[in-house]
């Protein structure tokens, strides 16, 4: 076997203990930090009711049995059933909301990288000039943005006062595309539904800008730092000596070399993206996983909250695995 294949297999095996530890942390936090039933019922419920729910959740058993049950159920992809309304399986409900989160994440992520790389390059080329300082300040300000507030301001300006863009939801119900993948923009294209496409994109703009700007600061700083280094290196001087146009030098020669640290950061940013998505979705009533979590928090629907957090933990392990594998293909120097 090639060393590449060995590396990938080893990396996959390594993510199993990582996942196990993360899932155990979720268990510890949700069981040891407090009692789920009293957290749910608020401590004023009749004892018979508490006992009933305790039994239903299997909380009357010793802690180690609860832990084993928890892991066994997860191994069967069973996240339990919701405790309110139709008591549907939690996994089904999460998967229903996941495409909305995925669509928002993809568009915000792309927007943040484009914006971050562009501002970073702009800043690096004007090092220590006023424009550079302004963009460095921008990097710090984005880090301090409180998503719900920024979203509120955008909603006020572009939704309420100018009336250009919708401020909540994913689509106008009259124009919602037929669901194939659950990504409305993609579905509208697949079904050749032009009004639906325009409507989905219009709904996507404000949440994307809110989350995208919040995430972009780190790419601005990263691109700036690396571009400053790279622009001073010999091969750039050589390219200049050959008389290549500045645009080619910057975007083709220099940026390519700044891309590996940016890729690493993309992998690290997923955790922040997920947390940011919870707030963005709540702000814009975007019916994804985060909004779903927010909704169920207000009902203290314990199994759903636990299920969503488990789902997020699994997602994080999976994404870090994928990023690491992409990484080896892009940078062949990394073979452990």
């Amino acid at each position, binding site marked *: 076997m090639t060393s590449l294949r060995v590396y990938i297999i080893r990396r996959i095996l390594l993510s199993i203990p*990582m996942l196990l*530890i*993360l899932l*155990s*942390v*979720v268990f510890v*936090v*949700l069981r040891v*930090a*407090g009692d*789920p039933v009293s*957290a749910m019922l608020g401590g004023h419920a009749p004892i018979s009711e508490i006992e009933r729910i305790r039994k239903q959740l299997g909380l009357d058993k010793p802690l180690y049995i609860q832990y084993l049950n928890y892991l066994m159920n997860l191994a069967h992809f069973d996240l339990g059933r919701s405790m309110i309304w139709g008591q549907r399986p939690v996994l089904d409900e999460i998967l229903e909301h996941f495409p909305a989160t995925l669509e928002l994440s993809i568009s915000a992520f792309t927007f943040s990288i484009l914006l971050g790389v562009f501002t970073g390059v702009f800043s690096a080329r004007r090092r220590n000039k006023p424009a550079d*300082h302004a963009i*460095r300040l921008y990097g*710090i*300000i984005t*880090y*301090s*943005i*409180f*998503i*719900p*507030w*920024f979203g*509120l*301001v955008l*909603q*006020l300006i572009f939704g*309420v*006062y100018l009336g250009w863009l919708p*401020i909540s939801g994913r689509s106008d119900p009259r124009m919602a595309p037929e669901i194939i993948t659950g990504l409305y923009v993609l579905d509208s294209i697949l079904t050749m539904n032009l009004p639906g496409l325009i409507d989905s994109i219009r709904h996507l703009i404000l949440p994307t800008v809110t989350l995208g700007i919040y995430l972009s600061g780190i790419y601005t*700083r*990263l691109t*700036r*730092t690396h571009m*400053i280094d790279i622009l001073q290196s010999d091969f750039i001087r050589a390219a200049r000596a050959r008389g290549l146009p500045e645009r080619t030098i910057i975007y083709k020669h220099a940026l390519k070399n700044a891309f590996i640290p940016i890729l690493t950061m993309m992998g690290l940013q997923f*955790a*922040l993206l*997920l*947390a940011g998505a*919870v*707030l963005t979705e*709540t702000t814009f009533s975007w019916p994804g996983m985060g909004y779903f*979590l*927010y909704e169920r*928090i*207000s009902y*203290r629907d*314990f199994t759903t*909250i636990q299920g969503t*957090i488990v789902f*997020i*933990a699994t997602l*994080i392990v999976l994404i870090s695995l994928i990023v690491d594998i992409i990484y080896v293909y892009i940078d062949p120097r990394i073979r452990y």
Partner: protein
Amino acid sequence: MANLTAPKMITSMLSKISPRRGVEGLFIIVGLVIVLTFIFMAIFAPVLAPYDPNKTRVGGLYESPNSKFPMGTDRLGRDILSRIIWGSRTVLIVTFLSMALSSACGVTLGLISGYVGGKFDTALSLFMDSLYAFPGLILAIALAVMLGQGIMPVTVSLTVVYVPIYFRMIRGEVLSMKESLFVEAAKAIGAKGRTLIFKYIFPNVIPSIPIVLSLNAADAVLTLAALSFLGLGLPAHIPDWGFDLRMGYGALTAKIWWPGTFPGLMIVLLTLGFSLFGEGLAEILNPKLSGR
């Protein structure tokens, strides 16, 4: 920065903040001014606030900003300015308390774990790393759901989120320091255990703490606001920016912009104050990290 005592370190830090340092110095000063303004507001809240923050109907409902209510009134006719002033007390108490607790726990555990090593260290590091892998907000949500509402539960939730950051940083420094000459020398003259950790190693890790502390404070302000925004924060009688922002959405479409905009602006300003201070400090104390 080897083996400086704390007062000496502070003077050397201050001497580096001069107008000649340009933008970094400016960042620190602006950040400090913002943070100090909020601290001033928090301390003198009873004197500064024109009205009782919880008293309903001190004016009309949703009165727009005017000379009597500079930031208007909210849905219950409470004065928004007064709520903001009292809210600064809430956010600063929670932030400072959780920073103190998390740095104390994280630094102590990091020192011990790094020094003792072995299986204890492996197990603790594994646990801390997996806490760290979680998005801070999601972890805080999980804890806050379980611990319930109130100042202490929220403080504890935030503390748990930030402990791993201090732990990882300090443990790393202790590991690299363990092999250094002055530790060897201290061992040779018979220092061991607690003395070695707290008298020889600890003073040398202090310089890296203030930067992390202020950057974490910035993050903690946001996380607290997010918890309150999601309805997991504080009971209704404690004025709280995040929750007021949430309530500000209620009448948004009626062009009533002030109940949400002002509390949210305060969250951003205070976060910016801590970040500017931390960033400026980082650039000056640790030029290697600059630009990150």
